[in-house]
């Protein structure tokens, strides 16, 4: 689980072009949207694509993302339970 959290932090920084943020600046329970990392709606769509492409998880309802992308901790738990690859 710890490796997955680290992997997610690296992917989020790289794929969402968060150039001013270092991996160790993202705590496992930091909110990813709003006052946390400040991600926006396009970032949310990009995370949905990432779940599909890298972990074989298809979200049929984009609204599901709101809960799943709450934090790195929540994302890692969800991926561990639902991943198909």
């Amino acid at each position, binding site marked *: 689980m710890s490796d997955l959290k680290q992997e997610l932090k690296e992917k989020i920084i790289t794929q*969402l072009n*968060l150039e*001013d943020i270092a991996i160790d600046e993202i705590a496992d329970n930091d909110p990813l949207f709003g006052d946390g990392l*400040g991600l926006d709606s*396009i*970032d949310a769509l*990009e995370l949905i*694509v990432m779940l599909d492409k890298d972990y074989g998880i298809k979200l049929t309802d984009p609204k599901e993302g709101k809960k799943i992308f709450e934090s790195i901790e929540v994302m890692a738990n969800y991926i561990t339970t639902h991943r198909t690859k």
Partner: protein
Amino acid sequence: MKVQQLKIKAYCSIFNNKVMLNDQLLFENQETDFSSFIKLAYKNMDTNYPKFFKMDDLSKLGFLAADILLKPLTTDSERANNIALAFSNSASSLETDRKHQDSIVDKENYFPSPAIFVYTLPNICLGEISIRHKLYSENSFFIFNHFNAGYLYDYATCLINTGKADEVLCGWINRDTDDYEAFLYLVSTEGSITHNKEEIIKLYTTK
């Protein structure tokens, strides 16, 4: 219509790994490719806007050149600035269109990126600038084969003389394969350079 002689208040270019404001060199780095150069230029200009890194190359070019010209005019004020935008190029958003195409060409590996797709129109660049500088003004992005000083001259003159805008940020922002070029100039009722087709061409060709 009140016809007045307009001026070019300031101009900026990003070309050949140099950033110029009027005839002053602001930044140069000949050791890097475009991607690294534009990030270094952004940092050197002290442009504090993290969303910059999410933009495509065309928007980065336009955003940075516009920011250099508009920052002195707009950062001290929360008011909506009546500065219109009239940009142009020849490649439209082709560089980003190609990236999007690459992501959808293989039906077995079909993962289009929303972050790339949103930049598959050249005028998104104008939106980025308008958000940054709180512009609620006219904006247009024209596609020409070559830099068209006469068209931009007529368009800017009409916007100001009909009261549609107080000032117009005009120019050419192009990005295609290994080439890039940004040249923007601010048309105003103030300034030292006469706004006419000949002066615009002179500034563009000597950038």
